[in-house]
C-alpha cells in the first residue's frame, strides 16, 4: 500500500518531468533517424554534439552577460551561432569520419564516430575545463506549481520551453522532410541512391545535408537543456545513448514512433526514479532489450518480406 501511495503521489511530477526529458531524447533521436534513413549510418557522437551545443551556449551567455546585454539577446545570439557551428561540425564529421568508411559490410563508421565522440569529450574538457557550469534561464527560476487536488507537481518555465521548443523543432524537421522538395530528394536518396542520382539529385549533397540537420538538432537540444542541467564535458554521453535506445524502440525509420518512444521512455524513467533513482539510467536499456526480444524492428515498425 505504501508503494502504491508513493507511486500515486509521485506520478504527476514524474509525468511532467518525463515528458520534458523525453522530448529531448526524441529530439536527439530524430537526428539518428535523419542520417540513418539517408545513409544507413549514424553519428555516435550525437550526444557529444549536444554537449558542444550546451558549452557554446555557456560561452555566448557568459560573454554577453559580462558585456551587460540582456538575457534574451544571449538566447537569440546563441540561436544564431549554435546551428552554424554545429552544421560545420556535421559537414566535417561526414567528410572525415563517415564518407571514407561507407562500404558494404563496413563497421568503420561506428568506430570512427565513436572516435569523434572521444575527441569531443576531451576537447570539451580542454577548452571549457572539468567543472560543471550553470547557464541562466531566460525565463527565470521560479517553478510553476500546479496544485489541483491530486495533481501536484512543479515545472520550471525553462522546462516548458524545452518541451515546446523541441516539439516545434521536430515538427519543423518533419515538415521539411515530408513536404519540401529538398526533403523529398533526401527520401529518394534513402530509398534508392543510384536511381536518385540518375534523376539529377546530388546524392552527396543530400547526405551532407542529413548530417547537418542531425548535428543542428543535437546542438539545439544542448542549448535547451543547459539551463536545467549543468554543462560539462560528459553531459552528452547518457542522453546520446538513451536517444539511441529511443530511436531503436521507436523504429529508425519512423519519426513519429521516435517521438512517442521518446516521451514514453522519459516518463518511464522518472516513474522508476520514484522508487530507485540509481536505476533511472538503466531502465531505458533494459526496456530496449526486452522490446527488441519481443519486436525486433521496434514498437512501430512493420516487418517486410525479402523477395527472391
Amino acid at each position, binding site marked *: 500500500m505504501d508503494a502504491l501511495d508513493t507511486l500515486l503521489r509521485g506520478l504527476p511530477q514524474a509525468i511532467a518531468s518525463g515528458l520534458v526529458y523525453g522530448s529531448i531524447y526524441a529530439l536527439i533521436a530524430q537526428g539518428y533517424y535523419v542520417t540513418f534513413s539517408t545513409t544507413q549510418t549514424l553519428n555516435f557522437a550525437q550526444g557529444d554534439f549536444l554537449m558542444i551545443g550546451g558549452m557554446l551556449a555557456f560561452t555566448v551567455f557568459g560573454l554577453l552577460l559580462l558585456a551587460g546585454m540582456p538575457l534574451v539577446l544571449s538566447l537569440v545570439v546563441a540561436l544564431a551561432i549554435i546551428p552554424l557551428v554545429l552544421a560545420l561540425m556535421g559537414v566535417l564529421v561526414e567528410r*572525415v*569520419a563517415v564518407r*571514407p*568508411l561507407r*562500404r558494404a*559490410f*563496413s*563497421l*568503420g563508421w*561506428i*568506430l*570512427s564516430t*565513436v*572516435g*569523434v*565522440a*572521444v*575527441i569531443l*569529450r*576531451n*576537447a570539451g*574538457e*580542454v577548452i571549457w575545463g572539468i567543472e560543471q557550469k550553470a547557464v541562466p534561464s531566460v525565463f527565470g527560476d521560479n517553478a510553476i506549481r500546479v496544485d489541483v487536488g491530486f495533481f501536484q507537481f512543479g515545472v520550471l518555465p525553462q522546462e516548458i520551453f524545452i518541451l515546446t521548443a523541441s516539439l516545434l523543432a521536430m515538427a519543423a524537421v518533419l515538415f521539411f522532410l515530408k513536404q519540401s522538395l529538398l526533403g523529398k530528394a533526401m527520401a529518394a536518396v534513402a530509398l534508392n541512391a543510384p536511381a536518385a542520382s540518375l534523376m539529377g539529385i546530388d546524392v552527396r549533397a543530400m547526405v551532407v545535408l542529413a548530417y547537418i540537420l542531425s548535428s543542428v538538432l543535437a546542438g539545439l537540444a544542448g542549448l535547451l537543456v543547459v539551463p536545467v542541467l549543468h554543462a560539462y564535458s560528459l553531459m552528452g554521453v547518457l542522453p546520446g*545513448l538513451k536517444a*539511441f*535506445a529511443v530511436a*531503436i524502440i521507436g523504429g529508425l525509420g519512423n519519426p513519429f514512433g521516435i517521438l512517442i518512444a521518446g516521451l514514453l521512455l522519459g516518463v518511464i524513467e522518472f516513474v522508476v526514479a520514484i522508487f530507485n533513482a*540509481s*536505476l533511472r*539510467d*538503466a531502465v531505458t*536499456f*533494459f526496456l*530496449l*532489450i526486452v522490446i*527488441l*526480444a*519481443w519486436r*525486433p*524492428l521496434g514498437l512501430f515498425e512493420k516487418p517486410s*518480406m*525479402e523477395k*527472391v
Partner: protein
Amino acid sequence: MLAVAVIVAAPLVLYDGFIQQLMQTIAYYTIAAIGLNVLVGYQGQVSLGHGALFAFGAYASAILTTRLGVPVWIALFLAAAVAGLLGFLVALPTLRARGHYLAMVTIALAIVTFVIAQTWIPVTNGPTGIGSIPRPEWFGTTMGSLRKFRPLGDSGPVLTGQILYFWVCAGFALIVQLLTNNLLTGRWGRTINAVRQSEIASETIGVSVYRMKLKTFAYSAVLAGLAGALFAHQQGYIVSDTFTFDKSVELLVFVILGGARSLFGPLIGTTVLVVLPEVLKTIGSYDILPKSNLPLQVGLVIVGGLCALGLARGSRGATRTMLSLGVIGGFLGFTLVTPQIIEHFLLVYGALLIVFLVTMPDGMAGFLRNLPGVRQLWRVPTSAVSHGAGSLAGVVAVPLPAQRVSLQLEDIKMHFGGVKAIDGVSMKVESGQVHGLIGPNGSGKSTLVNVVTGVYTPTAGQVRLGSRVLNTLRPHTIAAAGVTRTFQNIQLFKDLTVLDNVMMGFHTRRRAGFLKQLLRTMSAATEEAQIREQALKLLAFLDIEHLADDEAQSLPYGLQRMVEIARALATGPAILLLDEPAAGVNPSEIGRLSNVIRRVAEAGVTMLIIEHHMDLVMGVSNHITVLDYGKKIAEGTPTSVQSNQRVIEAYLGSSEHTFDDLRRGRVVVVQPA
C-alpha cells in the same frame, strides 16, 4: 613451435615488470578480440557489448574465487562458461532479426551491465570493487608477484610470478588462436562466411542460419569471458568503473583496426593498440624530440594534410600505401612534438582511431597483406585435380528409384494482404520427371517456388514430399528433407571460391560436430577431404572443375548458374527446383544448360523448372503446368500445352498467334531482366 618459443623467450628478454604486465594485457585482450573477430569479421554480426561479457567473466571469476573459495584454475573456466551462457541467452531472441539489431541490443547489454555493476552493491561492491582476488600459484610462487626465483637451480633463468602469469595468458591466447584457426580455415569458417553473404541461399542448402549465428555468438562470448577472468586475476581487484560502454568499443577497435576477417588481425591490432599509447607516452615524457617547434609542427601538419588530400582523391597500390603512411606519420609526429596535445592522451586516441580507420580500411592485417609483394606470399597453391566427366550417382547421394518420392501441392494459397499471388493451385511433380512450370509474368511461379522451399509459409494448403508435410518447416529443414533450389537472381556466396560454394552444398550430410572441428580431429579432417573430393567430382560432372579455385563472383552469369546448380546437387536432392535457370544466360549457353538438365534428370533427380525460355523448357520437360493470375490454367505434355487455347491467350493476349510465332520472334513478349 615458433610461437611457443617466442612466448617463452619474450618475458626473459624483456626483463621488466611493467613490460611483462603489458604483455599479459595483450595476451588476454587478444583472446577476446579473436572471439569478437569470428563474430564481427566472419559472421558479419556487430557486437558492441563484448565489454559486458568481458565484465561478466571478470566478476564471475572474482566472486567464485573470493566468496566461494573455488580454485583459480577452475574459476577461469567457469567464468568463461558463465559469459558464454549469458551471451547465448542474450542472443537467443535477438538473432532472429536481421541486420544491425544485434549491435543495438548489445549496446543495451553493455550499459545495463555497467549499471548493474555500479548499483548491485551486495554482489559487485560497485565502484569500491572486489579486492584481493587470488592469483594462481605455480612453483610455489604467486603469479604476478615480482619476487625472483630460480626453479632450475642456480644456473637456470631467473623467473618471477609476473613471467609465469604472462606464460599462462599467452598460453591461453596461443591455444585459442590455434583452435580458432582450425574453425575458420575449415568448414565452420566457410559456413559463417556463406551465411554472411547470403542467408537465404544458406538456408536452402540446409544450413540453420539462426543456430549457426547463435553458436558463433556463444563461442565469442566464451572467449570474452575467459579474457575477463584473466584480467581479474591479473589486476587482483576489479571496480565497476572499468566496465563502461567504452570497454566494448575498445575490444571492437582491436578487431577492426587489426583487421577484421583476418586470422591474425586481432593479435596485430591488440598488440599495436596496447603498445602504441605507452610508446607515445614514453617518448612524450622524454626530451628526445624538439618540442613546440613551430616550423616542424606546421611542416608535419602540411605533410599529413597533403597525404590525406591525396587519399581523398582516390589512389591505389603503392601510392596509396605511401600516402597512408604519410598521414599516420604526419599525425604521430605532430602529436609527439606538441606537448599540449599529448597531455590529453584520449584526444590523441580518438584522432588516431579515425586516422587508422580511414587510411587502413581493411585493418592493419589488410594493410600488410596489400603491401606490394606480400600478396604472393599469402596465396595458397591450388589443388584442383581433373577427374573427367563422371556420373552423378557416384558423387552425390541420388535417391535410388525405389526411394524416389513425388512432390505434391494441394490447394496452395498464398496471399499478400489483398493480393492473391497463388489462389488454390494443386499439382503433382512425379518422381523421375522434369516438370516445367510456365506462365506470364506475375502468374505466381516464383511465389510457388518460395512456398515449396519454405521461404514463404502458404496462407492455406499443403506441400508434401512423399508422405511428409513440408509447409510448416523452415527452409533448412526442407533442404535436409530433400528439396532444394536455385535462384532467379543468382545467390552464390560471392567471396567464396567455386569449390567452397559446392562444398557448402554438402552441409546436411556432414557429421563432424563443433568440438571435432575445433580440435580438427582425424575424423573431421577425413570428412573434409572426402567432401572436397566429392565436390571436385561434382564440378567435373558439370565440366567446370577448372574453375574450382576462382572466386564465384568473378565468373560470367552462365557459369555462376552452373555453380549454383552444382551446389544444389551437392545436397543430394530428391527434388530440385530451378527458378528461371536461363534468366540472364547468354543464348549460346542455353544449349549447354539444357544438356546439363537432361544429364541431371538421367541421374535420377526429379526437377521442377520455372522458365520463360520456351525452347529450353519445352525441350527438357516431360510434363508442363501453366499458371496465370495465381491459378493453374493448363497441364499436360509440352505439345498439348502449346496448342491449348487458354495458354495461348494468356501468353499472347489473343488466339491468333501460336507458340511458334513466339519462338520465331514474330511476337515479342517483354521479359524482365
